[in-house]
């Protein structure tokens, strides 16, 4: 949801919609002392070397000691080989004054290791595992990673490793037992740095009791031409050079009216970064939950350097690189070697997991607003969708449904009978989602607050008191979700025996979980708060929302063990995708924000968060008809599809606009619902393989350099190419049809409305009407659809399918369909149908993947084939040896086969007759 309106009031300023965020509310690198210090290394370099004789070789890893040659502090180094072409590099202090924080709960499980071979020669150590190889240089310390002997990643090639070891504060230095002389020298080193031992930002003071403890390391990508990843930023898909600007920042923040084209931190932080070139793709997951800044160095592409390269005959420019800088913790980096984009995306999800197959309704259309005022309001909006024969699956309630922002309660005046209201929705196959935020109103008569107070469940101040901040309820405290007991308590609150005024069909929206603290530094929690295990908030900040989600997910699973939970979250970290869908937060009703919805979700998708969307219409401000229409059309092709609006905006349900707008929106909704079988199949395959549901062009066209930076288009799996209209007042859009090789050969693409075929690669100007959503189906693919209209997706369960077959140059196509009960975990027990359809030689056949155990009443009502050279006279379908003639009809540029009427779990062969 929204922002710190309250905070703005407190500080007495109101920012206009037009002007956006006030950047001075947030730190620059220069204002963040560890970033400033770590970045300095970029000019001087550091001197680290392995200490000879300390090497230990194990079956799956090597360890050694590492020395900072300037201050002689010692570190331990570990390189581990993991399954699937991934290495894990860890560096920690050998004997830290106190333990340094290691991220927990981000990985889906302890990664599996693989055996290695180790060779030593010329001070180099070569660690090999399958196609992957790491060559470790002792002095200066550096590791080069090779995939099939192609050099794809270097660690510390720039010598920007920077590791601030823990030290005693100078005052204590005077004490007689304060350690050796060596330490004295080091302390003096950083003494002249202001901000090392305490820091101020605006009116906020950070006590920094443990002093400087930053970690930083550079990663180079010699085979790459473009870097991408590290969401969440409102910026282009391809990362931009940070030379002359601040680095990209990863620090979960509630940013009020964020601006686009910005490297500022937003609500989520996923420290995974990819380097991609025509031959190779590799990635690095920097596992650190503290505030992190990432400097980006892109390859020099200016005239002089290209001239030099041309003359010298070498393309050896400095490879693109990233410098990760974190405030505390250890170096814990996963180097993923690809070789292709889809490989590396899957290597990442193998580590951090994927969203499980969601309930189908959550992939349908969501209707939200801050706020639907009362029960009548909810009922009326739901009924209006029926009146205008528009499908809608889920109504949402924002914070105003609660009794004074006390979560797990209802405003009894506006919502006297929530269970009746919920029943009215669920009877139509609809759902309700209610918001539950992590801030807890400090009200002694509120059970949740008294429980947390009594049991000591809140995050503590340095002094050991319950931390108090300001948020929606006024004075609020924040449960310490890092404590498993607190998570259990929290999870139990969702149980229907506790939260009696909802049903198991009511799902949850976790907002404000960065956490948002209106009167805190940068509108979040102070870094010197204390969490479970005595860790500082500084160490774990970016994980707070993630831990919140773990509690909610657990609660929903226990509430109804046979229903898949649906949770929407704003804050997220690596691995949060296992629990929740995300949206891009408090955007603006503005064309530039519409354009960024795709850029941001593409970046999220390759970082594990396929289940991503943006507030349709824009959260702040009032979209005009055209912007709203185009936003619905765009939202219809992003995985999470929800309209939402700020409380101060005008109502914008589709029927409040002229009829034309309503019909355009209806048409976009119908299109979304018709493709639900594809979305659902895609999410099943995401769970199975980790392959993102939406993908940038480079995922499947890795050699087409012109496609690398395109972020106004997306692929849905490898089946659809989507290029929504996202500019005002245009009658045509430029669409880029990517090449599969360097000879400009490409796939066939079929317009999904007309089946007109696009055969050329490169940029094409495509005319559009107000109704048009430019979408193409790839030649060679088969897409399952449901083309009957219903009030909600649940009512489509038994509706028949349409298969759309688009042929490639060889006249072939294939594609999968997955179906089950769309709701329960029965699919984990094999209650599903997963089938691959294959078309070749004028014949369509199906092949079941696994036994089709789910009993479905759905059937195939229509088969559409595009790309045939001739129109067949008829078709013959053979089931169990019984053949039957089917009518064939030409419509537009496709052939329709009438009513095969085959059940989904039946083997068949369908032949075209000429």
């Amino acid at each position, binding site marked *: 949801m929204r922002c710190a309106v309250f905070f703005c009031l407190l500080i007495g300023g109101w920012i206009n919609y037009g002007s956006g965020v006030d950047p001075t509310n947030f730190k620059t690198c220069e204002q963040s002392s560890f970033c400033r210090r770590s970045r300095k290394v970029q000019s001087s370099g550091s001197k680290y070397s392995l200490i000879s004789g300390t090497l230990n070789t194990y079956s799956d890893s090597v360890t050694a000691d590492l020395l900072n040659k300037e201050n002689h502090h010692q570190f331990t180094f570990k390189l581990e080989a993991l399954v699937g072409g991934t290495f894990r590099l860890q560096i920690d202090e050998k004997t830290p004054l106190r333990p340094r924080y290691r991220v927990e709960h981000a990985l889906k499980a302890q990664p599996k290791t693989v055996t290695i071979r180790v060779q030593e020669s010329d001070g180099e150590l070569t660690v090999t595992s399958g196609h992957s190889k790491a060559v470790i240089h002792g002095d200066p310390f550096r590791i080069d990673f090779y995939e099939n002997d192609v050099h794809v990643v270097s660690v510390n090639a720039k010598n920007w490793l920077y590791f601030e070891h823990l030290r005693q504060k100078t005052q204590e230095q005077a004490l007689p037992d304060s350690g050796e002389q060596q330490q004295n020298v080091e302390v003096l080193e950083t003494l002249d740095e202001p901000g090392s031992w305490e820091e101020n930002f605006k009116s906020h003071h950070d006590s920094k009791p443990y002093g400087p403890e930053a970690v930083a390391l550079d990663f180079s990508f010699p085979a790459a031409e473009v870097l991408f990843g590290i969401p969440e930023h409102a910026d282009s898909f391809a990362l931009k050079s940070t030379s002359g600007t601040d680095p990209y920042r990863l620090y979960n923040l509630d940013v009020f009216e964020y601006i686009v084209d910005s490297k500022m931190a937003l609500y989520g932080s996923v420290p995974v970064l990819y380097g991609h070139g025509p031959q190779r793709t590799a990635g690095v997951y920097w596992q650190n939950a503290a505030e992190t800044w990432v400097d980006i160095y892109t390859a020099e592409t200016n005239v002089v350097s290209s001239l030099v390269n041309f003359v010298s005959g070498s393309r050896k420019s400095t490879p693109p690189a990233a410098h990760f800088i974190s405030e505390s913790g250890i170096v814990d980096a996963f180097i993923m070697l690809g070789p292709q984009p889809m490989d590396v995306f899957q290597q990442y999800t193998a580590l951090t997991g994927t969203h499980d197959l969601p309930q189908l309704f959550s992939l349908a259309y969501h209707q939200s607003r801050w706020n639907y*005022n009362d029960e009548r309001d909810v009922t009326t909006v739901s009924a209006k969708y029926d009146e205008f024969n528009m499908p809608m699956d889920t109504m949402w309630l924002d914070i105003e449904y609660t009794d004074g922002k006390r979560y797990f309660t209802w405003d009894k005046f506006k919502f006297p009978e929530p269970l009746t209201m919920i029943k009215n929705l669920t009877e139509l196959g609809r759902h309700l989602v209610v918001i539950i935020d992590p801030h807890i109103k400090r009200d002694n008569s509120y059970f949740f607050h008294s429980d947390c107070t009594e049991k000591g469940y809140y995050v503590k101040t340095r002094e050991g008191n319950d931390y108090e901040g300001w948020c929606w309820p006024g004075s609020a405290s924040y449960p310490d979700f890092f404590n498993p007991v607190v998570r259990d308590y929290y999870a139990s609150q969702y149980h229907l025996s506790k939260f009696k005024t909802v049903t198991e069909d009511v799902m949850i929206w976790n907002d404000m979980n960065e956490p948002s603290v209106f009167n805190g530094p940068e509108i979040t929690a102070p870094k010197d708060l204390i969490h479970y295990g005595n860790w500082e908030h500084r160490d774990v900040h970016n994980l707070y929302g993630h831990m919140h989600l773990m509690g909610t997910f657990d609660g929903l699973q226990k509430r109804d063990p046979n229903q898949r939970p649906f949770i929407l979250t704003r804050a997220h970290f690596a691995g949060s995708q296992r629990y929740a869908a995300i949206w891009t937060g408090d955007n603006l009703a503005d064309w530039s924000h519409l354009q960024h919805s795709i850029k941001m979700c593409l970046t999220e998708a390759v970082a594990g968060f396929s289940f991503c969307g943006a507030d349709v219409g824009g959260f702040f401000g009032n979209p005009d008809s055209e912007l709203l229409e185009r936003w619905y059309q765009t939202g219809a092709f992003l995985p999470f599809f929800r309209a939402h609006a700020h409380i101060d905006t005008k109502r914008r349900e589709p029927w409040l606009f002229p009829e034309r707008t309503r019909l355009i929106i209806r048409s976009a909704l119908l299109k979304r619902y018709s493709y639900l079988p594809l979305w659902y199949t895609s999410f099943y395959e995401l769970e199975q393989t980790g392959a993102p549901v939406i993908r940038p062009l480079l995922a499947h066209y890795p050699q087409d350099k012109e496609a690398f930076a395109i972020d106004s288009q997306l692929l849905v799996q490898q089946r659809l190419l989507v290029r929504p209209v996202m500019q005002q007042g245009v009658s045509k859009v430029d669409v880029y049809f990517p090449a599969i090789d360097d000879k400009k050969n490409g796939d066939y693409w079929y317009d999904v409305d007309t089946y007109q075929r696009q055969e050329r690669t490169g940029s094409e100007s495509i005319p559009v009407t107000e109704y048009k959503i430019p979408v193409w189906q790839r030649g060679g693919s088969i897409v399952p659809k449901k083309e009957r209209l219903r009030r909600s997706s649940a009512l489509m369960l038994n509706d028949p399918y349409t298969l759309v077959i688009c042929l490639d140059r060889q006249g072939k196509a294939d594609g999968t369909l997955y179906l089950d009960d769309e709701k329960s975990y029965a699919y984990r027990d094999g209650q599903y149908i997963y089938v691959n359809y294959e078309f070749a030689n004028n014949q369509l056949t199906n092949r079941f993947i696994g036994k089709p155990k789910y009993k479905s009443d759905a059937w195939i009502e229509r088969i559409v084939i595009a790309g045939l050279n001739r129109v067949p006279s008829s078709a013959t379908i053979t089931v169990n040896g019984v053949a039957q003639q089917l009518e064939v009809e030409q419509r537009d540029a496709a052939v329709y086969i009438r009513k095969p009427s085959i059940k989904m779990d039946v083997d068949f062969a369908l032949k075209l007759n000429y």
Partner: protein
Amino acid sequence: MRLTNKQLVLLAICAVATVSSVYGGEVPRPRGVSLAKAALYQPRSDGKWTCLDGSKTIPFTQVNDDYCDCLDGSDEPGTSACPQAKFHCINKGHQSLDIPSSQVQDGICDCCDGSDELPVVGCGNTCNELGAAAAIERRNAAELHKRGAEKRQEMITRGKQLKADRAARRSELGARIKEQEGLKAEKEQLKRNAEALENEAMEAFKEQQRELDAETAQAEQEPQQMRQEATLSFVRYDANKDGFVEITELMVDMNLDSDRNGVVTVEEAKYFLDERERVDLDAFVTLAWPRIKPQKMLAEGLFQPPVVETEQPKPQVPSTEAPQAPVVNDEQADMELGIDEHGHDGEEDNEDEEDQYEEDDEPDVGVGEATADSETSTAAPNYDPETQRLIEQANEARNAFDEVDRHIREIEHEIKELDEQEGKDYGRNEEWAVLDGECYTFEDREYVYTLCPFDRASQKPRNGGAETTLGRWDQWLGEGDKYSKQKYSNGAACWNGPQRSALINIKCALEPRITGVSEPNRCEYYFEFETPAACDSEAFQAAEQNQHDEL
């Protein structure tokens, strides 16, 4: 009533089985087709049938075979195969109904006769019960409209009477004003004569009083200066440069926020415009500026609470510009008044304030002899008895003239009000007229809402605090029946938002009352209002008949 998997096992087969079964009993026609359209669903002699849009000819057996053949969806009136098709529920015993194909065979019973779902869903037929209930409801509604219409008839009678009264009063005032204008001319002549004599005497007296000239000049200068200031301010306020200063133009000046609640309300602004909607330059100078100036001075810290008048002795020399002199006095009086009001403005509640403003009307518009008198008595120099006598005579003549003049203005004011009322649309038969001047309230958890038809809608927190105007009478806004909705616009501006407005949805009932108030959009209020004025038995019956005919 949701469908289960098991229940639907035979869906596809059943759908085929029901293809073109006899439907509805009387005339054979495909499922989902209304009686009126039955003729369109007859097979040709060759067993074929053409889509209603003519787009295609198909075997009649393909009608309702659960596959969409026609572009217009006309071949599938009884299934969900065509997204744009309609299904006709006969609903015998109740109203028949067209539902979209999206609701056919989805496991939810939408037709009361259950015809939209397969028998396996087990919808049952509730049409008779619903029909009976609807009939009772219709009877009740008809009865309500009938009884309400009787009340409405009374309202019409009274409304017409009010209209006639207004017309009578209007013509009476027309005659009176003519009469008064004659009298005014007469009094003006008398005044002129008396002033001529007075002038003569004064000139003579002045000769003797040369030494007082300086102060006299000053006294003349002051009104001049006042006018200049006022003109400047007028230009500044007149944002749209139409030669008038309007309420909204004043509302931007926070100095005029008398109760200092952060908003210049319409009421506040109106006070400064002498309770008018807008004023031209002259009216501004004479009526508005004297009210505004003290506020300005107060805001700028220039205003010192007035010391007793006598401490700044001003030789009050009645001069030839005598008619202007009272204006000066008047203005001073107003200043005092303004301050005085201000003294308790902040604390007192708004209703009082308004009343007070209204009472202020008189002295502001009028000339204020009393004030002039008191001024004269405290500041008059010692004239010789003859001059004094002439001055008094002239004063009397002036007062007599002013009296008539004021009277005329009063009549004009009343005429204006009558004309305004005449300009309001009180409905086809004046049935709404009696509501003008009435106010109705509604309380919810937080607020008391007030609706004064044809005047304003407002809101006041129950736990105390200032009343906020949600809107002033704007217009009738019903779709279809114009008199089913009222709009009140230009209410107090919302913080960082638009000006408030209210939409009144009106229904027939025997007693007038507000039944609910909501705020679906920020700052847009929605009142549910009931009154017998909305009861129209004939229109109700006509609508009923119409609906019946359609079925």
